[in-house]
């Protein structure tokens, strides 16, 4: 049986997070009542004209930089003409032959063999990124179709990859990477459920070893990242079955049904639209100076994969922690700021953020967070300085999150400051050694774990105020002395 290789290209539309729409100063937010974010321009009333929102251009330029695209010094707007009720003007202002960004590549990380092992990284080539305006949203009822034009006119970037992916897993990693990077630079929230990211896939197959592309099928209606994965997986299998039964693959557009997990034909190549593109005479070409292009590059934050590399190489953080911190701009910024204030213990800071902070804030928005990087830095410093014990620190942390009080304040209020009277602690160690001969004997006979019983007793007797490291040190001293 022939072995086949899939060839996949993705066209991803991403809604840019700008204050107002692309060609008129009407705000856009998700979830408003239908047809409330409108004016005469959005509705395409007679006589209205588009005026470019420069903020959208800058966000798109930033996106281009993230993926190493070549940013055009001049690009223009074209009209894509077609009749559909969601398009208020029956044409969409887009970019045909002079896109804002050309080339570039998206670094992706494939899943590793285990959760704590980093997966393979590779780069997926991009064809282009261009800007265009979004259309309205149709809701089909039993006897009627409603149109909501709120979304119409919001800025989209269309990110077109080369046919450079070969598995549903790569497509998945590609979308995850787009999502991560675009969130990082604040270009978009990329929430597929809210339509902030939409994906069409071009899928073809060919015998392994062949360099020619097979007939491609365009998949639409892929409404979630996992939907993209399942849709592509289904399509590859469908095409293999067609070829294996000596059929031939039609160039067509198919619609993915995420409930039935099948795709159905929407239209064949013969029905393809003639969009009658031409340069939009209402808008002049955009010219971008070197300075403007460079300024966007200079403003880019450290990108997630570079950050992850730095955390692992320079700060010696384990992959599992970096894989939690790095994809999330908020978490990694929180880490960086805390680490800058207290550079001595990045591992502890990373653990507090990746474990405790995430657990305490589960289901809550970051805007409600009362903890700040200086507060966390202080907490870690108190622990490392043996002022606060690790076990009490957990409770202090929870209280900090709830009350917004500083660690010092809580330690003081609750009298949690550790006592470091070494002689007294030595006496307690000796007391415990005397009181628990059995674990002492076990320890001395080489069963090192037996010491934990003793430690627990000491902590109990010191009400958790003695630093565990000190307990450990003194206890071992006492145990060894006795012989």
């Amino acid at each position, binding site marked *: 049986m022939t072995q086949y290789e899939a060839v996949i290209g993705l066209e991803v539309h991403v809604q840019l997070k700008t204050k107002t729409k692309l060609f008129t100063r009407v705000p856009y937010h998700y979830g408003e009542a239908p047809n409330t974010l409108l004016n*005469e321009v959005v*509705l*395409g*009333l*007679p*006589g*209205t*004209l*588009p*005026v*470019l929102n420069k903020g959208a251009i800058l966000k798109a330029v930033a996106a281009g930089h993230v993926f190493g695209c070549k940013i055009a010094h001049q690009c223009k707007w074209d*009209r894509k*003409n077609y*009749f559909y*009720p969601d398009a*208020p*003007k*029956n*044409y969409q202002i887009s970019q045909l032959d002079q896109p804002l960004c050309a080339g570039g590549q998206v670094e992706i990380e494939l899943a590793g063999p285990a959760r704590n092992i980093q997966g393979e990284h590779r780069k997926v080539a991009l064809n282009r990124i261009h800007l265009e305006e979004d259309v309205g949203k149709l809701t089909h009822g039993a006897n009627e*179709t409603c*149109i909501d034009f709120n979304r119409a006119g919001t800025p989209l970037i269309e990110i077109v990859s080369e046919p450079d992916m070969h598995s549903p897993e790569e497509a998945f990693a590609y979308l995850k990477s787009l999502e991560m990077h675009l969130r990082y630079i604040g270009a978009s929230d990329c929430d597929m459920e809210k339509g902030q990211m939409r994906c069409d896939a071009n899928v073809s197959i060919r015998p392994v070893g062949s360099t020619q592309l097979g007939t491609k099928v365009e998949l639409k209606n892929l409404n979630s990242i996992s939907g993209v994965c399942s849709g592509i997986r289904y399509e590859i299998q469908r095409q293999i079955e067609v070829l294996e039964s000596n059929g031939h693959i039609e160039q067509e557009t198919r619609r993915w049904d995420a409930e039935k997990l099948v795709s159905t034909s929407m239209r064949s190549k013969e029905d393809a639209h*003639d969009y*009658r*593109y*031409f340069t939009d*005479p*209402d*808008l*002049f070409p955009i010219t971008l100076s070197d300075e403007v292009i460079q300024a966007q590059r200079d403003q880019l934050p450290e990108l997630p994969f570079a950050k992850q590399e730095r955390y692992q190489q320079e700060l010696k953080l384990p992959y599992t922690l970096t894989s939690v911190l790095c994809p999330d701009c908020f978490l990694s910024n929180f880490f960086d700021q805390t680490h800058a204030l207290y550079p001595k213990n990045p591992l502890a800071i990373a653990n507090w953020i990746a474990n405790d902070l995430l657990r305490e804030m589960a289901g809550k928005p970051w805007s409600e967070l009362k903890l700040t990087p200086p507060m966390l830095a202080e907490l870690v410093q108190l622990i490392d300085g043996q002022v606060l014990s690790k076990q009490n620190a957990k409770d202090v942390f929870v209280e900090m999150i709830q009350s917004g009080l500083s660690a010092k304040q809580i330690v003081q209020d609750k009298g949690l400051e550790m006592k470091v009277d070494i002689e007294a602690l030595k006496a307690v160690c000796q007391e415990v050694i005397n009181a628990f001969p059995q674990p002492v004997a076990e320890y001395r006979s080489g069963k090192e774990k037996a010491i934990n019983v003793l430690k627990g007793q000491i902590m109990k007797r010191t009400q958790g105020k003695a630093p565990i490291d000190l307990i450990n040190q003194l206890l071992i001293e006492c145990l060894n002395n006795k012989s």
Partner: protein
Amino acid sequence: MDDVIFQSLDTLINGLNAKQFSSVELTQLYIQRTKAVEPKIGAFLSFDEDKTLKEAQASDKRRAEGASLSELDGIPIGLKDIFAEKGQPLTCASRILEHFISPYDATLVQHLREAGMVLWGRLNMDEFAMGSSSEHSAFKMTHNPWDLTRIPGGSSSGSAAAVAAGEVPVALGTDTGGSIRQPAALCGVVGIKPSYGRVSRYGMVAFASSLDQAGILARRVSGVARILSILCGADPKDATSARKPIPNFLADMQANKGKQWSLGVSDAYFQEGLNPEIRQSVEQAIEFYKNLGYRIVPIQLKTLDYAIPVYYVIASAEASSNLARFDGIRYGYRSPKAQTIDQVFEYSRGEGLGPEVKRRILLGLHVLSSGKYDAYYYDKAQKVRRLIYNDFMDAFKQVDAILAPTTPVPANKQGEKDTPLAMYLSDIYTVSVNLAGLPGMSIPCGFTQDGLPIGLQLIGKPFEESTLLSIAEAFEAGHDYSNCYPLL
């Protein structure tokens, strides 16, 4: 009554200032005149007497309080039914917008309001400005006040006829291929199409975006100059409006008085098909300027022959896209027969748009279609358009303005030009100005033996309307045509 309604804007302004009449009284004169002659002329598609009189009252109140907004405060003006005026119909003389009321003001309408002008009525036109006779209005025919059996020209038919018949002292029109200059010529009034980008297109329903420009029709050169002064300027709502200093045209004209300019004359405008009486009038105008000491320079405009085909390719292509929004979904006419979404599009447009509009949309769809050649016709036409512009700019190295007839023939009888091609050729002298984005004017320069007005066309350098107005005013000062008005 005639002694007031046919006066220049200067005289009307003086009359208001001298309290010879109030804005309400002046407005009433034009309302009465309109009611008296409309059955013969048919220049108006609609008017709102109460609203207009309220605007006049407000103007009188401001004047009484010493708070007039401008010299033009209280002067009535008519609007071609293509400019959005909040709360008023905006039909473009099309069934598809028959019951559409504009919820917003065009930028130019805002400028008129800021100057305190009184908006009197919505003026007839060829549907969506496609045509040059008013015969393509879906609602009515406008008659030439000089001969009611003849066309007034178009597409700003109502604007030209209403000014000529004394129904308004001044009107706004639009000019995509000659739609201000040609009816101005045929009705014996002054018309100006400013440089592309000089005035905002926001709120002016688009026919061909790269060619459309609003302009003014009035009885005298100073009248169009006064209104142009308040309309100019970059508009944040129109990306194609030019960021140029706003001239004081009247002051420029004053400063230019007596200046001897050089004028270009090209054989291209005096070829076969030019009516001999028009030729004679224009030649006399050339002589007149010579006698004023102007230099007359023969110039070459080699590419002018291509202007008509290039114009119809570009204008139709842009129109096919601009008019796609009229689909029966969000506003305008929706066919009651439509059952499916495709039928909403097909029947609403089929029933709502007139034959000339459909013809141009079909032409536009064709020239934009990919197939073998990607937008071949459109791109090619844009290249030739550039050559036409270059030709003009070469000529302007030698001359300050170009003189030409506005139209090849005077107003024809209604129904006479029965083929689209005959109609398209009547734009032959005007379309190149739009293709090159230049300012152009038509001023009255005589009458035929049949008593039909003849227009002299002046074409200027980009954004040099001041020069054009100065040259036009010099002609006006030496002639009496602007004092002639039709007997109705």
